[in-house]
């Protein structure tokens, strides 16, 4: 091939690729502006959402995943009629949780050249109380039953080429004193009865029992554990192996969690299990799809969790005792909390 033809070929290729890239971005931009998706989006209207007691009973508040202007906004539905018209509020959250009038909203702040993230503490009327800059991408958020303590987990990404070396950082905030415990990895760890120190431990997925005690996942050396944590004594103690993203039942007796089940394919390693804290007996739920979420107890008998869906994520429900079968709770929704 002559240099001239090589150059012509290259310039043609550049022109074609630039045109194709421009079309791709314009098409995606049109999609993002909304309305292109087929299928019935859940009915919604804008309105007032409260994190306090509601005259009509318990609500399910979550991040709306419907495409268009309501994408990522907080939405509420009656807990006993989750398919009814949603009330959509202003705050935009990637992850959300609430209890007793305190909400935590982990959100992206879109910059010109880069996003950064922050944790916003909301009061019962969804007003910002304080916000905190985050070191990475938000993934888990929980509020203690009294509404006093708030915990969140972010991913701190690797910076290397095609880096897959993620680590987590989990923070606990006291909303009465505004004291921040920035990194739970500094806690004293007792692993299977012995003191343990390692630079490569990760802690994520806090679930509170009260304003001092909590449970979380501890990972180290390629394994994971359920740990009992003490936010005053700054200790973590392992209780049980192979537990990720624990969620404590309202009565405090059981933990719902992701279990890495041997023999499952690599792209679907987890199942939703329930652990009895008194006997350490494990019960698989009837959900047989792989699940990667911190489950939520709707009450002492029912679990809710997110699975991939048409618009990113849907919420499903399944009995916690291993009976029954999974049922759709709310389409196009993520990061739910029950507000009573």
């Amino acid at each position, binding site marked *: 091939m002559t240099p001239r033809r090589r150059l012509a070929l290259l310039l043609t290729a550049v022109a074609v690729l630039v045109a*194709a890239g421009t079309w791709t971005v314009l098409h995606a931009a049109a999609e993002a502006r909304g309305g292109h998706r087929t299928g019935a989006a859940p009915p919604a209207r804008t309105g007032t959402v409260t994190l306090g007691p509601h005259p009509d009973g318990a609500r399910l508040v979550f991040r709306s995943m419907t495409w268009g202007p309501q994408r990522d906004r907080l939405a509420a539905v009656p807990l006993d009629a989750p398919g009814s018209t949603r009330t959509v509020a202003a705050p935009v959250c990637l992850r959300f949780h609430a209890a007793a009038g305190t909400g935590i909203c982990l959100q992206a702040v879109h910059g010109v050249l880069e996003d950064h993230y922050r944790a916003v503490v909301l009061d019962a009327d969804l007003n910002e109380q304080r916000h905190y800059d985050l070191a990475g991408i938000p*993934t888990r958020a929980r509020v203690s039953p009294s509404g006093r303590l708030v915990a969140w987990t972010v991913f701190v990404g690797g910076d290397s080429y095609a*880096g897959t070396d*993620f680590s987590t950082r989990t923070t606990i905030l006291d909303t009465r004193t505004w004291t921040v415990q920035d990194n739970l990895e500094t806690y004293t760890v007792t692993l299977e009865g012995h003191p343990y120190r390692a630079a490569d431990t990760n802690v994520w997925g806090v679930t509170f029992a009260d304003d001092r005690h909590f449970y979380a996942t501890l990972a180290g050396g390629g394994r994971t554990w359920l740990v009992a944590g003490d936010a005053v004594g700054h200790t973590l103690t392992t209780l049980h192996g192979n537990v990720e*993203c624990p969620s404590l039942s309202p009565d405090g007796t059981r933990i719902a969690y992701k279990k890495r089940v041997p023999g499952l394919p690599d792209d679907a390693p987890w199942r939703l299990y329930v652990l009895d804290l008194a006997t350490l007996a494990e019960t698989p739920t009837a959900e047989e799809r792989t699940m990667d979420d911190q489950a939520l107890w709707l009450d002492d008998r029912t679990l809710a969790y997110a699975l991939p869906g048409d618009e990113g994520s849907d919420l499903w429900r399944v009995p916690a005792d291993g009976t029954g079968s999974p049922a759709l709770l709310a389409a196009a929704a993520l990061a739910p909390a029950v507000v009573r």
Partner: protein
Amino acid sequence: MYIADSRLPAASAAAPAPGPGRSARIAPTVLALGTVSLITDVSSEMVTAVLPLYLVTVLGVSPLGFGLLDGVFNGASATLRMLGGLLGDRGGGRHKAVATVGYGLSALCRPALLLVRTAPLIGLVLAVDRVGKGLRTAPRDAMISLAAPPERRGRAFGVHRAMDTAGALTGPLLAFLVLRSAPGGYHAVFTVSSYVAALGVLVLVLLVPGRSLRSAPPVPGGRPRPGELLRLPALRRITGCATLLGLATVSDSFVYLLLQRRLELPTAWFPLLPLGTAGVYLLLAVPFGAIADRIGRRRMFVLGHVALLAGYGLLLARPGSGAPLAAAVLVLHGLFYAATDGVLAAAAAEAVPERRRGAGLALVGTGQAAGRFACSVAVGALWTRWGDTVALAVMTAVLAAAVAAAAHLPAPAKEGPA
């Protein structure tokens, strides 16, 4: 646009000359390979920048799911670098063919991201991407060293590394521009990244000359063996030197973690720290490569480690606090990379005959990587047992000893031009 083929006089006339007289001396092949690396890094860093966000916000999964795959494939990458070097040397220089396979494999990973929707499969795609990177690194460096005249090799590698870093810094910006235009348009990012990767391969195929050995005829019965390389005294010395200094080089993530913890920087700064190092590296890679050509590459390599030693020292002594000290450490860290990364390849090229160039460069690179891996393991163990101050103090002492040893190694007969 230019045609990177020195046999074509019309082509060199078409070459741009941004700086009067200076840039014209950079071999077109080096610029072409630098362009390939720049484009490929734009493509790969676009994906790297948005992948965690995509996993968390769109797929709703946790990146930890595939973080576990990482360690397994790091080792494989070093082995593949050696293989890429050996294959590239066969038949008198099939470097371009092997590099094309490597770049092509990585390019195919981009559209694959549009198809996989679970974290472990995405981890697998990234692993294949690393296989491609492992294969192409040594033949690419061999081509650079063969295209540049020996007295300007340091600068040639500096030009390549600077272009590479410019791509790495541009990729995330391009990704965020796409996401700004199309919020939630992660598939648009992956699609554009695929086009960019395809363009990189096309530039390689069209603009990089095929046979990179200019003079040497194919070796009769030439099946290069690593054992033969180890009998070259100059190469043995330089591999030993790189491995020794690698043993005292704390991995980047440890450096940033130490910076953030010891200087008590706000956690929100953490993602910005690598940009500091990369910025300094980008600015200084070319001038430092040129200086290395003049004062001797080994001397520059050792001086780079002195800068790193100064950085460790600052972190250990903490003679100030917060932002100014962090900036000083990041500048020293960037200086270290600018003075060592391309310079090592240039120095290694000196020590290997042309027909063994790919394997020779791979051997030096693998030795350095092995040293750094051992260092990571040691730092992790020290940190766990005695805390970060002791770990850092030990590594500072080891680095000081390694620098002293490297500086006093008897100079090989064929050190770069004086």
